[in-house]
């Protein structure tokens, strides 16, 4: 079952990197940005109907974001992981809500915390943070401790004490 899906993907997307970890129940695919949406539609047709999560990893040294999509097939009991690299200056990617409706909130959360644009998502308003004026907080160049010290603590005898 894993081999059928691997052969379909290899035939249709010859220059994507495929990797099968040793347990034999999951597939890891690394694709380029152009092939990313056709590959996900192909996976949805092959039976991957449960959208588990989309997570974003920030690599500031290599100037890219890596988006990792986690999918699961209820009938075949196989997990698929799809990795896409997008540039860090103007990050934008096509939304997948036409394939999986439940992905809308996950994309909204990643837009707020990392600043990634999802084209086609109707509602990208704020979810957790209110009146946030700094850069998206989960990026690597945002220093959480410095922000908290300036806003909430005052220094006294070298030991931070809460303001007020």
């Amino acid at each position, binding site marked *: 079952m894993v081999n059928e899906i691997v052969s379909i993907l290899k035939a249709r997307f010859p220059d994507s990197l495929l990797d099968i970890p040793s347990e034999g*129940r999951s597939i890891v695919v690394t694709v380029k940005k152009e092939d990313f949406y056709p590959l996900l539609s192909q996976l949805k047709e092959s039976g991957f*109907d*449960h*959208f*588990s*999560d989309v*997570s974003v*990893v*920030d690599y500031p040294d290599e100037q890219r974001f890596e988006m*990792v999509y*986690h999918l699961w097939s*209820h009938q075949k*009991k196989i*997990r698929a*992981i799809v990795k896409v690299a997008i540039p860090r200056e103007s990050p934008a990617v096509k939304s997948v809500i036409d394939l*999986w*409706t*439940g*992905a*809308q*909130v*996950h994309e909204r959360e990643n837009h707020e915390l990392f600043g990634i644009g999802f084209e086609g998502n109707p509602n990208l308003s704020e*979810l*957790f*943070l*209110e009146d946030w004026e700094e850069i998206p*907080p*989960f990026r690597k160049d945002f220093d*959480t*401790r410095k922000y908290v010290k300036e806003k909430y603590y005052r220094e006294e005898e070298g030991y931070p004490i809460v303001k007020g």
Partner: protein
Amino acid sequence: MEEREISFATLPFGPQHPASSHFHALVKVEGEGVLELEPHPGYLHRGFEKLMEYRTHPQNCVLVDRICVLDPFANELGYVNAVEKLGNLEVPERGRYIRLIMTEFGRIQSHITWIGIMGMALGFDSICRIAWGDREKIIRLNEMATGGRLYPCYFCLGGTRRDISPEFVKLAFETLNYLEEQLDFYDRVFFNNESFITRTKGVGKLTAKEAIELGATGPNLRACGIDYDVRKDEPYEVYPKVNFRAITRVEGDAYARSLCRRDEIAESISIVRQLLRDLPEGPFNTEVNPLYAAPKGECYFCVEAARGELCFHMVSDGSPFPYRVKVRGPSFSHSLVEFPRLAKGAMIADIPVIYWSLDPCPADMDR
């Protein structure tokens, strides 16, 4: 025929409300029917994933309980297993058995808490006092084994931090016998109660196709007929050696979801009996360097929590601090996608019933 002017009011199903907890939603109603429901999460957002990047693995293991307080052992199990999978660490058999015993007790305790809160949402206050009194017996077991009542801080890389004693095993068997009698009592008083059946049958109905499309997991999905249980489909620890089944029902309404959780309590009691019977002797953990640096790579590990599928995506770059940890909480899809969809077209009095039959935990929605 005269023209009627349609006007609607906006009510808050707010954070200060007898039937909601740490969750805010704005409900647009016309008369008694709900037109639209808009959730506003964020009351418990602590930025867990960013804060975990500043701490080493042993420090993270004691703080990760706080992601979902009502079922703390599942969070620790997920984090610890994700790091061990990355580094191929050895865990002795006794450590694995102890981990699963505590996790299943945590699942029973979470479902008993749910019985109490569901009763309160329906207006049946007495069942909450009785159920939380029974939950106290499991929390005493927590205190005996781990030293803490609600925040156990018990699992570590390579096993568990303390051993369990023969007094614990004896008290565990007594608690299991007591809980089986109490399940009978709950059946007569709560689950076969005419008011409960009338208020929950046919309310909040989810079809199987809708449930998969909206990303439901856990008892909410199994009540629609699809048997997806991470303990059976991607087994971890010593679940392959234990005999149990995944509970499914067909109807998909609030009544089916409630009965799924009641049957899971009975199933978990049988799992704990088998584990306590087969508990091996030997060491309970292996020594791991406190500044343990997982090798470079990434890993995705899923655990079956009481509410659904809880997953950890861990990326490591060879240093003692994790590079990125992403937590997928089971209540994220339930509160933000399914609750608005099911509440549309319902009556105002059905809103707490639908909300609590989905069993959300705002802490693991916001993280």
